[in-house]
């Protein structure tokens, strides 16, 4: 059953230069207990999407223009702020990109953790401290009683991210949103945090939305992947589909730019040429047309509709039109290697 349904979500920022359509017409859902990955390069709208879900878009300049976000049937977009506060931290937990700046430097870890519990569940300080200690142990922090009395600067980056995870899980939220939880960390720490999240996913049975620009990160954790580009979803499907049978040229590009150990020596890492579209003046047709090696005339004039490939797998690309020339993922590799 769908826990979260996002339907036709559009979020814009109104800057002095004009309206920046950071997210336009995004629809997806997350099932109960499911982990979904959202991938895409910087500025593709993935963070704005989840911040819209949390209603954390700074307003002004940002605004949710359109659409519905239903959590267990309730539309969050139209919820009064007071009600929304009861959702944040309690029903949806969130982890941010930079653990170094995401914790308040002048409050102890204990204070920052217990306030969530005291506020949402109204339990006493000691009980809250006990629960916080339990969760710190769960995320692999030893000596939790002592740690609770310490301040964020006494923790390393990886440890702080563990604290953030514990804090987000304190009220047993139905949904955990992780906005690039590993990007700011060292590679070895990244692996540890991912391992921890995988571990927790089995333990605490929450749904997870994991945002990242790194396909490798989602592969191990998520069962479904959403690929975003220029504020739109260009392809989504099961992890299997996205890796084995990707259909959108942007997904191809993403896959080709990830180093793989099992690849043959001759295959190269291929960057995606060019830069993302200017969302201040979004292109009329497909957002990726300007960078797409297979762009056709129609790509510049009309946005492609979604083509359903199977029950879970869909992509928005004109190449999937029955009249379009057949181009497949592997065929391209050779051609580009030659040129």
């Amino acid at each position, binding site marked *: 059953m769908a826990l979260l349904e996002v339907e036709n979500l559009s979020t814009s920022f109104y800057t002095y230069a004009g309206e920046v359509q950071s997210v336009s017409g995004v629809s997806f859902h997350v099932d109960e207990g499911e982990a979904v990955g959202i991938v895409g390069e910087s500025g593709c709208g993935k963070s704005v999407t989840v911040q819209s879900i949390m209603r954390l878009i700074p307003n002004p300049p940002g605004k949710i223009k359109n659409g519905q976000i239903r959590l267990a049937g309730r539309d969050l977009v139209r919820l009064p702020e007071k009600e929304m506060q009861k959702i944040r931290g*309690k029903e949806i937990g969130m982890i941010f990109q930079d653990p170094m700046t*995401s914790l*308040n*430097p*002048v409050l102890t870890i204990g204070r920052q953790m217990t306030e969530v519990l005291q*506020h*949402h569940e109204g339990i006493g300080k000691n009980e809250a401290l006990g629960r916080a200690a339990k969760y710190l142990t769960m995320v692999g922090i030893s000596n939790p009683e002592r740690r609770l009395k310490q301040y964020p*600067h006494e923790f390393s980056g990886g440890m702080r991210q563990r604290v953030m995870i514990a*804090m987000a899980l304190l009220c047993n939220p139905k949904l955990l949103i992780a906005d690039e939880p590993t990007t700011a960390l060292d590679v070895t720490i990244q692996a540890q945090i991912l391992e921890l999240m995988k571990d927790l996913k089995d333990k605490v049975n929450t749904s997870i939305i994991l945002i990242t620009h790194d396909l490798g990160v989602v592969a191990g954790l998520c069962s479904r992947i959403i690929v975003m580009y220029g504020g739109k979803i260009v392809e989504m499907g099961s992890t299997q589909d996205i890796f084995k049978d990707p259909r959108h040229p942007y997904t191809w590009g993403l896959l080709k730019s990830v180093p793989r150990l099992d690849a043959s020596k001759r295959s190269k890492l291929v960057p995606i040429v060019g830069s993302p579209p200017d969302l201040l003046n979004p292109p009329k047709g497909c957002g990726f047309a300007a960078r797409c090696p297979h762009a056709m005339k129609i790509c510049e004039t009309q946005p492609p509709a979604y083509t359903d490939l199977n029950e879970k797998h869909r992509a928005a690309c004109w190449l999937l039109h029955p009249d379009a020339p057949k181009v497949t993922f592997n065929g391209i590799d050779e051609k580009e290697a030659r040129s």
Partner: protein
Amino acid sequence: MVRYLLGRILAAILVIWLVITLTFFLMHAIPGGPFASDKILLPQVQANINARYHLNDPLFKQYTDYLKNAAHFDFGPTFRYQGRSVNDIIKEGLPRTAAIGSMATILALICGTFLGIIAALRQNKTADYVATFLATIGISVPSFVIATLLQYYVGFKLHLFPPIGWGDPNQLVMPVLALSAYPVAQITRLTRTSMLDVLHQDYIRTAKAKGLPGYIIVFRHALKNAIIPLLTFMGPFFAYILCGNFVIEYIFNIPGIGQYFVTSITNRDYPVIMGTTILVATLMVTFNLLVDIAYTLVDPRIKLTDQKGV
């Protein structure tokens, strides 16, 4: 901690010694000397005066004597107030100055942070514009103008408060208002900037994501962080209050340190000028030390060790 404090106190004593030395030689470098502006005195009278004030001793002996006495908080006799020492004047004036100064400081801190927070929370809305406007007026009009206008219109014309003098609590109102106008304005501006900066920090977003209500976010999460940069300016504020008092006391005719100081400048009463300068410098150094200690109370990242910072 103890080592740090001892070090700081030693440094403070060093600073005060330097201030004493500098003021002493500055004052003695002034051509003419204390009685030059008077009518030409009889040589006999001049000699008596010189002997009375040890003006004939070699400069260095005068200096060491002064230093010795200053170490015992004895700043010597005044030139102009017959039979009174600088100490008498300080003893008489300091409590008055301290009363006005501390009240103005408290008023400035309360009003300033309050207005600043309101302005930051209502950024670009009416409340923000009103607070910013008031603050801008406060930093644009010299305090002696504010004091004069208050004194004339509120005191003489409207008879709301006594326009001059000392003794009645009512007489405190206008001096305190006039003295705190500038600090209120500055603190408002600083709090606003600092608050706005803090409100855009990641940890505030975290607090929001935890579902905390607005007042907890403002008072628990934002305010404490916003105060830290404000502390840096507490030293200059204190200095302003101390020196702003010179003008305010003079205008409202309050016999505090400030009035004696301004009068002494006109009279060239050097012992009083020196004594007051040393007193003010000592107060400043002490205050700065307190501010540094306050840092450690507010910001856990700062420990009182030999080097400041993380």
